[in-house]
């Protein structure tokens, strides 16, 4: 089970990956475990991306305008 992440990342060598696949075909427990890991990753990717707070954005825009007026290059 330690190889699951290497497997999903494509980091296993050809021979290792083949052995992993062969094992998966015969082992229901490991198939379920792999499936759980994949589901976990999928759910992680769907965590709501926190929205940039309007005050934070405004503060940054203000900083940008300050920088613009004081910077020699622009």
């Amino acid at each position: 089970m330690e190889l699951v992440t290497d497997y999903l990342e494509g980091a296993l060598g050809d021979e290792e990956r083949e052995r992993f696949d062969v094992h998966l075909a015969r082992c229901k427990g490991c198939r379920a475990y792999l499936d759980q890991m994949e589901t976990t990753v999928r759910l992680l990717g769907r965590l709501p991306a926190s929205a940039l707070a309007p005050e934070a954005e405004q503060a940054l825009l203000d900083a940008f305008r300050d920088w613009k007026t004081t910077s020699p290059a622009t």
Partner: protein
Amino acid sequence: MTYAPSRNETRLVDGLLAGDEASFEHLVRMHHESMVRVAQIYVSSRAVAEEVAQEAWLGVLAGIGRFERRSSLKTWIFRILSNTAKTRAERERRTVPFSALQSPGLLQEPAVEPERFLDLEHPRHPGHWTAHPASWRELPEERLSGRETRKRIEDAIGALPAGQRAVISLRDVEGWSSEEVCNALGVSETNQRVLLHRARSKVRKALEQYLEPEGSS
């Protein structure tokens, strides 16, 4: 290997140099939340992480005139962010053991408890699962995407040690490539994978405990 910026990135940098507000706004929307998440690896309080990210943007503006385009803009921005965060962390004497990011440790952390497997000496099923992990495919999708499930995941991430939290946040939550994560955190590909593996295992286990309270060990 020379770095070749995308046309979009070149436009953004040129826009910043010309004082174009839309370019800056675009950049902020792209990266700010990730920057807060990365800052939290070093300073842990979200409020302070927000300040660090804001300070980093000032650093970006101050330095954009000297940006040599030898690395990607994103890499450069996050380098400024990391430095700002580390400085702030040192000032507040909240040093994260950065060694945790470099070498995940020699201690073995099994992803699954050993008791879930039959002894290797077992007469008929050596090394087999004692009880199969359940298939989550049977669970209704609403359960998996529900607010409580999301909260459990967030809690699990929050409970992770800094290095694991960093990698899983950037790779799986923010969707960065492994190369981007290695560059941003200054870890090798192998270390990154070990951290990712441990983090995912812990989150999976937290989910299992929530989704199957009777079945989990």
